[in-house]
């Protein structure tokens, strides 16, 4: 029966204190409902409210749990506000629009404070279903009420419609062929056939036991049948336990393999090697930087006083240039030569140097002494020129020094950042942990292989026992036919046996057909929803329920898909199962786009509502998921009145759902 949710009323449920109503306007094409809320604001508890109302259970990340631990199902503040002896309740009411009229499903649980003021919640909830039959409204209450809901949407199919986005993304990353087979079995509705087979076996055993006054041969066959049945049951029980243990081991092995894919000794060794090289580089570059900085500083120390004295040096140089220009510099006669003449007291012409001539020579000597000073300065003329040229070059030389220093510093920064990243990664890759996990992987691989062999042997034993059991049953029928008094029993056993054979064969055929259908539909859905259509060539589910996603280059990439591709594969498989199940329920997805890259978000939000046209699609999204591109895409499938936001109080303890019609921007 096809149905949609027309309203959800929640009262004192989890963080929703008081009464909250969410009305959904139904539209075949505009089939999307958005409920936006931050992480922890109560999105998942809206999904929980629905599963609790329908099935008395809440879906948490770790799986399905009852509400007997942690926070009470009745709003904690509401419970706290009660006086001793006062009662309250948590209630969720879902109104459905079905092909056969309206339904109302209500679940309540009572709680309160006892006489001592201790809060309590009753362990049992009460379910009421009101549905229409003809013109009548029928009210169902009591133990069998759950059957009405189970007929609407069997609990086994619940997880295909009421979906946790994260679990869906993880489905194909973690699923074993057994889980895939179980999922297909659930929708195959083969449980009815299986139950009929089981009950016919039980019936056969009872008829066998009722055979009395038989011949010794019949007795012997009966004993053999009993023995084979016991052995069969025992071996099947061992197989079941073995399969459970194999599942656990395979799950652990898969987790370890996923971990070791990114955390392995080879990778760590490479990182450690890189870190050692970087450490050496950093040390070398640090030395180089020190040298270059020292060189620049020495240069600066040498040039700084000259730069400070630049105007003075320029003035001195100009003065010298002027003297040279005037011909006063350099001096023609040395002062020491004049001094020698004065000391000797005789001129070079032979006359004595006395009186006026001596006085003139002495004055001339003094002037020459001054000239020689200037001559020294004339030598400095060249030096001053050099100094001034060096000062002129200063900005360029400093730029060169600084560029060289900046380059070395930038390289050092890069190397240090890389070293930090390596350190972080190495820290994540705890080498001891990796080695432990590698040991564990090796042990698990051996154990899994052994367990599989043992299971194969046990399965072969069961087949053998079953063949011999069937033979004995036929033998018994033959023996019974000899004695007329057992004719009735023989006839009963005979028809039961034939029916059993038909049912078992039909089960195998139908199972194989459904697997093929799921495979075909999953592949078709995958190629409808996937963005990179050319990257893949097919999705297959083989007779052992192993899923293969074929890459265009021929590889099976089931273990190497991105988060977005896993989500699409999960959605494709779920949709295939949904359509095969024949049940038409709304699809509610909590956090559908978490961890999904932008391109896949774009594609999923464009394609999924079209793909589920006619099916109500309720998306519980975070503000990060519901970005402008997603909003733009979903707007075409969203009636404005179907847009809600979850608002928290200032303490983030209580939440309320408000219709944010018009507040989308």
């Amino acid at each position, binding site marked *: 029966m096809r149905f949609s949710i027309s309203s959800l009323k929640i009262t004192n449920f989890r963080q929703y204190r008081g009464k909250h109503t969410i009305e959904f306007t139904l539209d075949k094409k505009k089939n999307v409902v958005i409920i936006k809320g931050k992480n922890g604001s109560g999105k998942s508890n809206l999904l929980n409210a629905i599963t609790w109302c329908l099935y008395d259970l809440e879906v948490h990340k770790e799986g399905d749990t009852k509400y007997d631990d942690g926070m009470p199902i009745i709003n904690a503040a509401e419970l706290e506000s009660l006086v001793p002896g006062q009662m309250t309740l948590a209630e969720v009411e879902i109104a459905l629009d079905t092909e056969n009229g309206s339904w109302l499903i209500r679940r309540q649980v009572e709680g309160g404070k006892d006489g001592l003021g201790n809060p309590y919640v009753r362990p049992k909830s009460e379910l009421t279903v009101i549905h229409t039959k003809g013109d009548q409204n029928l009210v169902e209450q009591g133990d069998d009420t759950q059957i009405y809901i189970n007929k609407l949407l069997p609990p086994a199919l619940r997880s295909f419609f009421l979906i946790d986005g994260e679990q869906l993304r993880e489905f194909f990353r973690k699923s074993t062929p057994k889980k895939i087979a179980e999922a297909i079995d659930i929708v195959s509705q083969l449980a009815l056939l299986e139950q009929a087979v089981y009950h*016919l076996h*039980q019936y056969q055993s009872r008829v066998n036991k009722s055979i009395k006054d038989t011949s010794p041969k019949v007795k012997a066959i009966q004993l053999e049948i009993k023995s084979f049945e016991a052995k069969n049951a025992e071996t099947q029980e061992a197989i079941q336990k073995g399969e459970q243990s194999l599942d656990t081991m395979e799950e652990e092995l898969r987790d370890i393999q996923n971990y070791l894919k990114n955390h392995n000794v080879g990778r760590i060794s490479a990182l450690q090697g890189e870190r050692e090289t970087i450490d050496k580089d950093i040390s070398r570059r640090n030395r180089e930087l020190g040298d270059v900085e020292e060189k620049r500083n020495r240069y600066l120390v040498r040039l700084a006083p000259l730069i400070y004295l630049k105007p003075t040096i320029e003035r001195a140089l100009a003065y010298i240039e002027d003297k040279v220009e005037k011909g006063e510099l350099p001096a023609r006669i040395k002062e020491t030569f004049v001094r020698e003449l004065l000391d000797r007291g005789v001129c070079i012409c032979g006359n004595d140097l006395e009186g006026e001539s001596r006085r003139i020579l002495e004055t001339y000597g003094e002037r020459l002494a001054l000239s020689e000073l200037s001559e020294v300065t004339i030598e400095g003329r060249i030096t001053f020129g050099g100094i001034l040229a060096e000062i002129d070059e200063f900005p360029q030389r400093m730029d060169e020094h600084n560029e060289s220093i900046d380059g070395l510093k930038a390289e050092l920064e890069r190397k240090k950042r890389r070293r930090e990243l390596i350190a972080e990664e190495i820290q994540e890759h705890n080498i001891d942990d990796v080695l432990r996990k590698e040991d564990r992987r090796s042990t698990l691989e051996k154990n899994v292989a052994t367990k599989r062999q043992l299971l194969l042997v046990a399965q072969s034993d069961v087949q053998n026992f079953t063949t011999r059991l069937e033979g004995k049953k036929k033998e018994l029928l033959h023996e019974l036919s000899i004695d007329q008094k057992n004719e*009735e029993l023989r006839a009963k056993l005979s028809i039961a046996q034939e029916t059993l054979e038909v049912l078992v064969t*039909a089960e195998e055929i139908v199972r194989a*057909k459904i697997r093929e259908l799921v495979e075909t539909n999953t592949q078709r859905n995958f190629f409808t929803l996937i963005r990179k259509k050319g990257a893949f060539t097919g999705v297959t589910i083989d007779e052992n329920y192993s899923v293969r996603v074929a890459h265009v280059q021929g590889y099976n990439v089931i273990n190497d898909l991105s988060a977005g591709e896993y989500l699409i594969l999960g959605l494709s498989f779920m949709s295939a199962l949904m359509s095969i199940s024949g049940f038409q329920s709304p699809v509610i997805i909590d956090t559908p786009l978490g961890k999904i890259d932008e391109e896949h978000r774009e594609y999923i939000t464009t394609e999924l509502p079209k793909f589920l046209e006619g099916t109500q699609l309720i998306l519980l999204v975070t503000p990060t998921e519901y970005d402008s591109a997603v909003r733009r895409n979903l707007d075409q499938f969203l009636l404005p009145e179907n847009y809600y936001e979850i608002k928290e109080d200032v303490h983030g303890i209580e939440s309320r759902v408000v219709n944010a019609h018009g507040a989308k921007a």
Partner: protein
Amino acid sequence: MNEEVNISDLIMSTVYSLCREKPAVRKLVKRSLNYELDIWNRHIRESDIASEYDLMVVKVIKEMSQ
């Protein structure tokens, strides 16, 4: 969305194709599956189920002998 598949039809057509020549088996299959559908999700005692199966078998045998 994929085309819907009627699994009940698939199961019944498969079962019938396996017992075309066996009308008694066909009758018992049909009745047992209807009964299983009827008691689905209900808590019925094993002895009551066995009695019901006995009634079904006896009825089919009787009908076939007539």
